[in-house]
């Protein structure tokens, strides 16, 4: 039996967060009425000329610096020629021989192992419009609002060996572009699109197998499934003595399979050549230095700092630095509370994430602010409330019933820490549970939980659990 090794490379189209298009002054806002953001340049009226957006160049350089890539201070725009109705010029302005960003890398982590994934290049290009194939009296509708939106196409080396590694790379990239504030990362709206090149080869062989390209898959889950399916499909073909055809395939999430996209596989020849409308883009050192100085703390550095500064474990640190906003929330809460960073991390990973997921919200939409969470943790810390009651208060805060102290006051949730009061309740409980006491004394110490439960029930959860444990133990063991 041959052991097959998958080889995966990814091409990611990242839509850059500029206000205007890459070569025109039309707006890039998503979801506007059709063709209201398509100016004369975007629809390719005769006589128009492209003028490059400096912000798109700045964002590309920002990305390049963040992945330790070479910045090509001279880069060239080229025409990629093909005919399609949503490409009015008959060519897409892209970069071919000299892209703005050369080789770099990202480090991914799967099952606790770090691996470096090479980034071959990243180049600037313009997006095409959208074809709407619903029936307009037998015709196709064209919306050119997206035409000319700046894209950064990030091409990886074929360095990934499993769908899991591919997803780890994509997630890393997704986090990075949002940290850099060069892309909103919205996959549904197409701001972050992925094509995957997949091939297999017998383990140990250095030569690459024939690859297929999976196009435009718009969620992490589907990308993982599409690659997994494609690997299995290729293995089956090769083990049956067949051959892989180099082609573009489309993933169908409903049927969980990939299908060949082009019936006639005429050799696609884009006939690239340097665009005569656009002289070489030359970026000076001071431009690149100013971009370097504007770089934020990057996800890996932040994760490392969280581990060192707050004593978090790797898993917590990864989770808390998944987005810049979440990391900020954690740091704001931690600096405002007497409780430990670990406690804050647990609350974020537990209650907060639970509620956010349930209502499909992100951290910026949380009804419970970092300051409110800090106060809640303070009240556990100063023993005003127990952890269990704190969860009830969290829910109340989530539902907009005010902040921690208001809710404690209003609902009478203050913890009972008066040892005398607790002792009195314990005595009452013990008086009613002779049978359980006998069990306990005969060595069935598990019934201890029963007594705790009764005390908590009698106090509506307000008795300080540590004190309850101590007093109970003392009395039972006496």
């Amino acid at each position, binding site marked *: 039996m041959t052991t097959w090794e998958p080889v995966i490379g990814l091409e990611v189209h990242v839509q850059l967060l*500029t*206000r*205007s298009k890459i070569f*025109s*002054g*039309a*707006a890039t806002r998503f979801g506007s*009425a*059709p*063709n*209201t*953001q*398509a*100016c*004369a340049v975007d*629809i390719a*009226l005769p006589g128009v000329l492209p*003028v*490059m*957006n*400096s*912000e*798109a*160049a700045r964002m590309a350089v920002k990305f390049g610096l963040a992945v330790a890539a070479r910045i090509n201070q001279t880069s*060239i*725009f080229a025409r990629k*020629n093909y*005919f*399609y*109705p949503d490409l009015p010029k008959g060519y897409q302005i892209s970069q071919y*021989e*000299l892209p703005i960003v050369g080789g770099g890398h990202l480090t991914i982590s799967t099952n606790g192992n770090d691996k470096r994934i090479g980034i071959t290049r990243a180049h600037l290009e313009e997006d095409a419009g959208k*074809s*709407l*194939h619903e029936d*307009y*009296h*037998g*015709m*196709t*509708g*064209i*919306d*050119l609002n997206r035409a000319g939106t700046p894209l950064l196409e990030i091409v990886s080396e074929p360095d990934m060996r499993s769908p899991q590694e591919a997803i780890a790379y994509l997630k890393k990239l997704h986090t990075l572009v949002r940290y850099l504030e060069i892309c909103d990362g919205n996959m549904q709206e197409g701001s972050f699109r992925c094509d995957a090149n997949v091939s297999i080869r017998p383990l140990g062989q250095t030569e690459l197998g024939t690859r297929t390209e999976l196009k435009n898959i718009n969620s992490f889950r589907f990308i993982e499934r599409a690659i997994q399916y494609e690997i299995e499909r290729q293995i089956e073909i090769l083990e049956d003595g067949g051959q892989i055809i180099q082609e573009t395939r489309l993933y169908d999430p409903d049927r969980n399979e990939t299908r060949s*996209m082009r019936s006639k596989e*005429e050799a696609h*020849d884009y*006939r690239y050549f*340097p665009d*005569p409308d*656009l*002289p*070489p*883009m*030359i970026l000076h050192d001071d431009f690149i230095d100013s971009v370097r100085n504007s770089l934020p703390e990057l996800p890996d550095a932040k994760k490392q700092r969280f581990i060192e500064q707050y004593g978090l474990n790797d898993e917590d640190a990864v989770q808390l630095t998944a987005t810049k906003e979440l990391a900020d929330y954690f740091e704001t809460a931690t600096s405002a509370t007497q409780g430990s960073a670990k406690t804050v991390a647990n609350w974020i990973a537990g209650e907060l994430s639970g509620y956010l997921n349930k209502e499909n919200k992100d951290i910026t939409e949380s009804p419970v602010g970092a300051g409110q969470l800090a106060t809640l943790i303070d009240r556990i810390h100063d023993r005003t409330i127990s952890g269990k009651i704190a969860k009830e208060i969290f829910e109340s805060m989530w539902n907009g019933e005010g902040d921690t102290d208001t809710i404690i006051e209003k609902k009478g949730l203050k913890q009972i820490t008066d040892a005398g009061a607790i002792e009195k309740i314990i005595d009452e409980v013990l008086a009613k549970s002779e049978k359980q006491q006998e069990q306990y004394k005969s060595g069935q110490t598990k019934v201890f939980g029963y007594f705790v439960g009764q005390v908590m029930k009698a106090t509506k959860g307000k008795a300080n659990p540590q004190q309850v444990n101590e007093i109970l133990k003392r009395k039972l063991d006496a």
Partner: protein
Amino acid sequence: MALDHQTVREIAELAHLELDDSEIDQHADELSRILGFIEQMNQVDTTGVEPLAHPHDGRLRLRDDQVTESDQRASFQRIAPATEAGLYLVPRVIE
């Protein structure tokens, strides 16, 4: 180097040009002559010469990221053969 007719047909297809047989003859001949010039240029030793991307010495001018264009859909669509609901309509594209 002489281009055969099949290659000329493929190039014409890529450029969406419809050529009849006599035109194919003519283009095969002209394109072959152009390739001949390039063959000649290939004789020149270009070791150490940077590839030329653009005939002028200019560098790309960068503009600020400002929205300067307003919506002119109505006037653009006045000259379009077919529109509906703000869309340009084209003969159906079958994927």
